């Protein structure tokens, strides 16, 4: 099997986009091509384009969007497909691109993740995201992802002693990291006192899904990110040194969250990470920086345990001790995470990967983890029913 690396990255400013869906996706793609030194003219050498999106069809009324983007980018006759795996679409598309190169079907694959969610009202957007819940046991009840996260958080609080103050502390950490990321959606740091003070909390930090409050959940964002994958045996065609995709793991769990044997576990995260570690030959202690899927802050805590950084029930203790901040034992979500950088669903896994590539190249200005050699991405689909983990390595 051929080794695969990343030689180009692109990332739009997340937030509310003023351009069309296609324009936004193309902006990220062109950045990635430029970063790799590729000119989109005949002979460009791009064999395949994969577009990761959850809602281009439903929200933007644009089906077969990958075909439109290939043409707009002048990358014909490259092969093109759209990949949909909920919020894990991005890392899934990277996995599929990896597989194509490893198998010999392609030498180069451009993966673009793009989502434009701010086109519709909050009600419509909430309904769109909720369509990934179980179609009989969850969705018809009006349940949403925040509803599942709220119930999950209450269980974790009861079992391990995590508090609302811990979540607020985590919110401040990730927002602080986002201050150094020009692509982040929200570049402001909430005041810890203000978002936890009892007397005015319902105004400053209202409940979204009890016990989760506004500053415990990610914003709704538009955005796009792109990576150019290539076979390591052709990587010298490109301007940037390749960052190797060292490990990939994926696992699924029950679709209905209530069916899980241990309701406080994220089994698919654990299994996906274990598979990625096995493939890479690395251990959790070898990871220098991680982007974990913190659509709800509780997920960063529990994922940090499931991927082996901390013992079960001790993720929040590590946070309190500063182990997950930049300069700590294992910095998590240096980009600001989904919490502050934003979470355009289909773009997220690609965006997380872009951040790890920046870290391993030493290009994460203002938020650089010194000497980072190996990085982990966890991209979480549904409420943990389909999870993809990637390990990237600076070492060839």
């Amino acid at each position, binding site marked *: 099997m051929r080794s695969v690396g990343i030689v180009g990255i692109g990332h739009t400013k997340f937030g509310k986009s003023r351009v069309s869906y296609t324009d936004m996706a193309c902006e990220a793609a062109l950045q990635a091509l430029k970063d790799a030194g590729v000119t989109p003219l005949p002979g460009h050498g791009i064999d395949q384009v994969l577009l990761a999106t959850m809602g281009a069809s439903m929200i933007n009324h644009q089906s077969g969007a990958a075909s439109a983007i290939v043409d707009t980018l002048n990358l014909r006759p490259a092969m093109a497909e759209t990949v949909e795996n909920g919020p894990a679409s991005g890392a899934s598309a990277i996995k599929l691109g990896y597989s194509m190169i490893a198998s010999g079907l392609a030498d180069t694959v451009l993966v673009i993740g793009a989502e434009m969610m701010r086109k519709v009202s909050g*009600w419509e957007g909430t309904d769109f995201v909720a369509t990934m819940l179980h179609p009989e046991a969850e969705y*018809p009840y009006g349940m949403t992802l925040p509803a599942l996260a709220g119930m999950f958080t209450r269980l974790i609080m009861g079992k391990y002693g995590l508090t609302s103050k811990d979540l607020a502390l985590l919110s401040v950490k990730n927002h602080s990291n986002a201050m150094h990321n020009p692509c982040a959606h929200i570049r402001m740091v909430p005041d810890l006192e203000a978002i936890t003070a009892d007397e005015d909390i319902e105004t400053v930090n209202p409940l979204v*899904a009890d016990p989760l409050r506004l500053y415990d959940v990610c914003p709704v964002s538009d955005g796009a990110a792109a990576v150019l994958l290539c076979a390591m045996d052709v990587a010298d065609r490109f301007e940037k040194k390749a960052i190797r995709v060292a490990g990939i793991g994926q696992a699924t769990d029950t679709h209905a969250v209530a*069916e899980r044997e241990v*309701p406080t576990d994220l089994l698919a995260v654990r299994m996906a990470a274990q598979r990625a570690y096995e493939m890479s030959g690395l251990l959790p202690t070898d990871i220098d920086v991680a982007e974990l899927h913190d659509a709800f802050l509780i997920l960063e805590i529990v994922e940090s345990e499931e991927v082996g950084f901390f013992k079960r029930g001790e993720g929040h203790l590590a946070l309190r001790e500063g182990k997950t901040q930049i300069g700590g034992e294992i910095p998590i979500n240096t980009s600001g995470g989904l919490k502050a950088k934003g979470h355009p669903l289909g773009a997220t896994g690609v965006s997380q990967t872009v951040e790890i590539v920046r870290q391993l190249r030493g290009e994460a200005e203002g938020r650089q983890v010194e000497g980072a050699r190996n990085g982990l991405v966890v991209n979480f689909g549904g409420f943990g029913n389909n999870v993809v983990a990637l390990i990237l390595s600076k070492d060839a």
Partner: protein
Amino acid sequence: MRETMSETMPAADAKCAAPPMYAFRCEACGEIHYPRHYVCKTCGSQDFDEVVLDGACLLETWTRVFNLPEGYMKPSLCFGMVRFPNGLVVAGQLDVEEPRIGMELQTSVGVIKEGIGQDNYGFIFIENNMKE
């Protein structure tokens, strides 16, 4: 074959004339599933009985959500996961003033979303007023 899951439990409070909710019991090994699976989680059999899912249950966790999807004309909705005496855990709406983990609830079936021409029915867990 249909039977009630909790024959020793008090019958559900008749909140409305709603269709019953069913769990699915594997005919081969007896494993009870909710929601429906086409293949038994335990033994791989594909034959199931329907079992009415009703009676008392215990609240495992809950939330109140303030940003609802399109089609719910309410400022907030409460949701919970409950455990039935046989160990089955299911999620549904919660119509309880002050939810507490571990409290005993009663299963009812009611309108969980109003529709044009056809309402959607499902679990609404309510306070157990029949308790001694």
